[in-house]
C-alpha cells in the first residue's frame, strides 16, 4: 500500500491489497439451500400474482418459488429461463425493490417482501452451475437473422431466434460480448466473471455466431446486413454520453462514469486502478451510484454525488441510494454544475443551487464549490450512429408493436429503442418479444 485514502490526486493502491478483494466481492451473498427454502416458504402463491405483473419479462414467480420450496430448483430455473434467458443476471441487477418485490403482497402486509431476486439467483445459479442448457433448437428453418449488439436485448433476441431454428449472427462493437452486463454494471453485483459465464452458457443453445469488434456503421452497414440476412434486430444500446456543457469539462481528471465503470469491470487487479482522493459524481441514476460507490471502494476519501433535482426524482432507487450512503457516499441534491475549475487538472467543481418550479428547473444564483481531483459524469447516455433511414424520436429508435422499426425487416430493442425503462430486464423482454415477432414474420405466421 504505497498510497492512502488521503493521498492527493488520482492514484492507485490507496488500500491494502486484501481489502480490494473484500470490497469487490458479492454485494449480497447467495442464499444457501436451507435459506432458500425458508425464504421460498414466505411466498403466498398469490392468484394472478402482482409480482408477475410487475416483472417486465412476466416470469411466473409464484411457480418458480414453489418449485424451490419443494426442492426442485432446476425446475424453478427452467420456469425463469423460459421467460428470461438472462434470469441469472437479472437476479443480480434488477431493481427488484421497484419491480416484483415492490408489488409483493408481503411488502404491503409487513414491509418485507419475499426475496424474489435472491430466490431467482438461487434457482438460476443451481442450474447454471451444472453447465446444463435447458433448451434445444427447433428444426432448422434455413433463415438467418443479424443481431446488432451482444448486450441483454441482443442476446435475448438471438437465443429465442436460435431456439426457433433460425441461424443468428451477432455483431458487437466491443472486444467481448455481454454489453452493459460485461462493461456497465458495478463489479460487486456480478463478480467472478459471471457475465461471460452467462454468455457462454446462453450460447450453448447453438446456432449463434458472435462477431466481436464489428461496429455498425464503421465495419458493417445496415444495407450489408439486410442483404446477407433475412431480418435484422438492432440492440446496440446507447454508446454516446451526454456532456456537462460546463466550462472546464476538458480538464484532466474529468471522465465519463461509464468508462470508469468499464475499466473497473475489466481490471483483474483492482488495486492498480487510480481513483481520486476527492471524487465528485454528477448524476442521479444507477450509473452515478455505481461509480460513486466503487470510487469509495477503491479508497477515495470523499465521494459526493451531486444531482440537479430533488432527491425523490433520482432515477436510482431508494435501495440504491441507501447502498450509496451506507458505503459512505454523500448525496447532494438541487445543485447543477456551473464550471470545473483547476490548473490543468480538476481541483474544484462549482455548482449553483436549483429550484424545481412550475416553469422547470432554475438556478437560484447561489453557488458553492466542491473540492475534487476526479469528476465523473453520469448524466445519461445517448444514441449514436443510428443507421440512416430509421425514424428516431426522443433520442431513441422509434418502434411499434414488438420492436418493429419504421423500416420493414428491421426490429430494435433495449436501450437504443423507444419504450420501457432502460433496464436489463426490459431489454431482455424487448429482445425476446422482437424475436417472436421476427419468427412469426419470417415463417409467415400472422401475429
Amino acid at each position, binding site marked *: 500500500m504505497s498510497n492512502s485514502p488521503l493521498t492527493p490526486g488520482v492514484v492507485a493502491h490507496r488500500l491494502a491489497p486484501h481489502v480490494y478483494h473484500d470490497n469487490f466481492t458479492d454485494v449480497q451473498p447467495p442464499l444457501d439451500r436451507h435459506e432458500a427454502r425458508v425464504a421460498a416458504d414466505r411466498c403466498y402463491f*398469490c392468484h394472478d400474482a402482482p409480482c408477475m405483473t410487475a416483472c417486465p419479462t412476466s416470469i411466473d414467480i409464484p411457480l418458480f418459488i414453489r418449485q424451490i420450496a419443494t426442492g426442485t430448483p432446476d425446475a424453478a430455473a427452467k420456469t425463469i429461463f423460459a421467460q428470461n434467458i438472462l434470469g441469472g443476471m437479472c437476479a443480480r441487477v434488477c431493481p427488484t425493490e421497484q419491480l416484483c418485490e415492490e408489488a409483493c403482497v408481503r411488502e404491503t402486509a409487513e414491509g418485507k417482501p419475499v426475496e424474489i431476486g435472491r430466490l431467482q439467483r438461487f434457482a438460476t445459479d443451481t442450474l447454471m452451475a451444472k453447465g446444463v442448457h435447458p433448451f434445444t433448437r427447433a428444426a432448422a428453418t434455413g433463415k438467418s437473422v443479424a443481431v446488432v449488439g451482444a448486450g441483454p436485448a441482443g442476446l435475448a433476441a438471438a437465443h429465442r431466434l436460435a431456439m426457433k431454428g433460425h441461424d443468428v449472427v451477432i455483431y458487437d462493437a466491443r472486444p467481448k460480448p455481454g454489453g452493459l452486463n460485461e462493461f456497465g454494471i458495478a463489479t460487486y453485483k456480478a463478480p467472478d466473471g459471471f457475465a461471460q459465464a452467462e454468455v457462454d452458457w446462453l450460447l450453448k443453445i447453438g446456432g449463434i455466431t458472435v462477431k466481436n469488434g464489428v461496429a455498425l456503421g464503421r465495419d458493417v452497414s445496415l444495407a450489408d446486413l439486410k442483404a446477407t440476412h433475412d431480418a435484422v434486430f438492432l440492440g446496440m444500446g446507447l454508446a454516446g454520453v451526454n456532456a456537462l456543457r460546463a466550462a472546464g469539462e476538458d480538464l484532466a481528471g474529468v471522465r465519463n462514469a461509464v468508462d470508469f465503470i468499464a475499466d473497473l469491470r475489466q481490471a483483474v487487479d483492482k488495486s492498480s486502478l487510480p481513483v481520486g482522493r476527492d471524487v465528485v459524481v454528477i448524476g442521479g441514476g444507477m450509473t452515478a451510484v455505481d461509480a460513486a460507490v466503487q470510487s469509495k471502494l477503491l479508497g477515495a476519501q470523499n465521494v459526493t454525488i451531486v444531482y440537479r433535482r430533488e432527491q425523490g426524482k433520482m432515477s436510482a432507487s431508494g435501495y440504491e441510494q441507501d447502498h450509496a450512503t451506507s458505503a459512505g457516499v454523500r448525496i447532494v441534491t438541487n445543485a447543477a454544475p456551473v464550471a470545473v475549475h483547476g490548473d490543468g487538472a480538476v481541483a474544484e467543481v462549482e455548482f449553483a443551487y436549483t429550484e424545481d418550479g412550475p416553469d422547470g428547473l432554475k438556478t437560484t444564483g447561489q453557488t458553492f464549490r466542491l473540492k475534487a481531483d476526479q469528476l465523473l459524469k453520469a448524466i445519461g447516455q445517448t444514441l449514436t450512429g443510428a443507421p440512416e433511414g430509421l425514424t428516431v424520436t426522443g433520442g431513441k429508435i422509434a418502434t411499434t408493436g414488438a420492436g418493429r422499426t419504421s423500416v420493414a425487416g428491421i426490429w430494435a430493442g433495449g436501450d437504443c429503442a423507444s419504450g420501457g425503462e432502460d433496464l436489463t430486464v426490459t431489454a431482455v423482454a424487448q429482445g425476446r418479444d422482437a424475436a417472436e415477432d421476427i419468427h412469426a414474420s419470417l415463417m409467415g405466421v400472422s401475429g
Partner: protein
Amino acid sequence: MANLTTTFIGIKSPNPFWLASAPPTDKKYNVERAFEAGWGGVVWKTLGSEGPPVVNVSGPRYGAIWGADRRLLGLNNIELITDRPLQVNLDEIKEVKRKWRDRALVISLMVPCDEDSWKDILHRIEDTEADGVELNFGCPHGMAERGMGSAVGQVPEYIEMVTRWVKKHSRMPCIVKLTPNISNIRKPAEAAKRGGADAVSLINTINSITSVNLDTFSPEPMIDGKGTHGGYCGPAVKPIALNMVAEIARGRDTQGLPISGIGGVTTWRDAAEFMALGAGNVQVCTAAMTYGFKIVQEMISGLSEYMDEKGFTSTAELVGRAVPNVTDWQFLNLNYVTKAHISQDDCIKCGRCYAACEDTSHQAIAMSDERTFTVKDDECVACNLCVNVCPVENCITMVELPKGALDERTQRKVGDYANWTTHPNNPSVTAAE
C-alpha cells in the same frame, strides 16, 4: 399468578403438566432434570417383566415431518419399552420419588397378557412409593407383535380383564392408556371403566410412515433399507387427540371418567384446550423432545395468565368447560347463517381467497381489475375456506345474520334454532301428531 396445583385421581402435582411415558422419562437422570425444570409429574417409561432386557434397533428410532424452517410438526418412533434392567428402574424410581415428594410419579407397565405376569410386576413396584400405574395398551410398534401394547388396547375385553387384575392385585390408582388405532375410542374407554380403571390417558401414538426416501425407496425411519410403521405424535396429531378426548368426556357411558390428555401438547394453549375438553391434566412428550424440558416454564406462565384473565382459581374450573358444546352433527343449528366478510383495510390482495373459492368452492368471491376482493352474499355458503386460506389473521371474518334477516343465497329469512332431526328433508322425521 393462578395456583396450578392439580389433583388427578388423588395424585397431587404442582401443575397439570406431566411428561408422558416415553424416552424423556427413561431414567433418573432425565426425570430429575425434568423436575428441576418444573414439570409437575412424570409417567416413568414403560417397565416390562423381569427377564432378558428388551432389544432396540441400533439404527434410527425416529422419523419426522417438518414445516417451514424445519419446524418439527410430527414425529414417529419405533423405540420399544425400557431396555434397562427392571431392578435398576425400580431403585431409581424409589430414589427419585423420595427426593421429589411434591411431584407426581406414575409407573407405566406392559407385561404379557396373563394374570401372573401382572400380579408379579405389581408386587415388584409396590415398594417404590410411586403414586400410581399406567397400563400401556397403546404402543403400536414392536411390542404389539408380541401380544402386548396396542394388541391389547384394540380388544376391549382384554382391556377390561387386565384392568380387573390390576385393581385386584394393587391398591395404586390405575390409569389405562388407550391406543387411537381403533375405530371407536369409546369402546376401550368403556372397557377400562368396567374393569375398574381410575382414569384413562390418551392418545398413544398413531400407526404411521413419516415419509418415503425416493432414492432408496425405503420408508423413514429406515433400518438397513427397510422401515416399519412407527407411532406418530407431535403437533400434527393434536386434532385427532382432542376429538378422542372429547368423545370420552361426553360419552354416555364414559362421562365423568377422569382423562389424562395426550397428543401434540406443545404450548399452554394446547394444554388448556385438552383440559377444556375434559382432560384433568396433560402429558407431554414430543414438545420436550424437540425443545428440551424448559418449555414447561412457558406452559406454566401461559396457563396461569390465562386462568387469571378468566378468573379461574383452580384448574378444576377449566376442566370440561367445553364439553357441553361438543355435539353431534344432527343437533347443529341449521338456521345459523353467516357470510364471509373481507376487511378491505386488512386485505393485502394476494387473491388466495379468490383462487380457493373460484376453483374449489362456490364462486362466491368477486375480483375486480384493481384486485379488490368482495364476497357475493348470494353465493356464499359460509364454508369458511376463505378464512382458512387467508394469510392475514382476522382479515376475513364470518358475520352472523341476525334473526329475521334475508339470506340472499336461499332467499329465506333467518329463523329460530332448528336442526336435522326436525328438518323436512330428513326421511327419519316422524311428524308430530
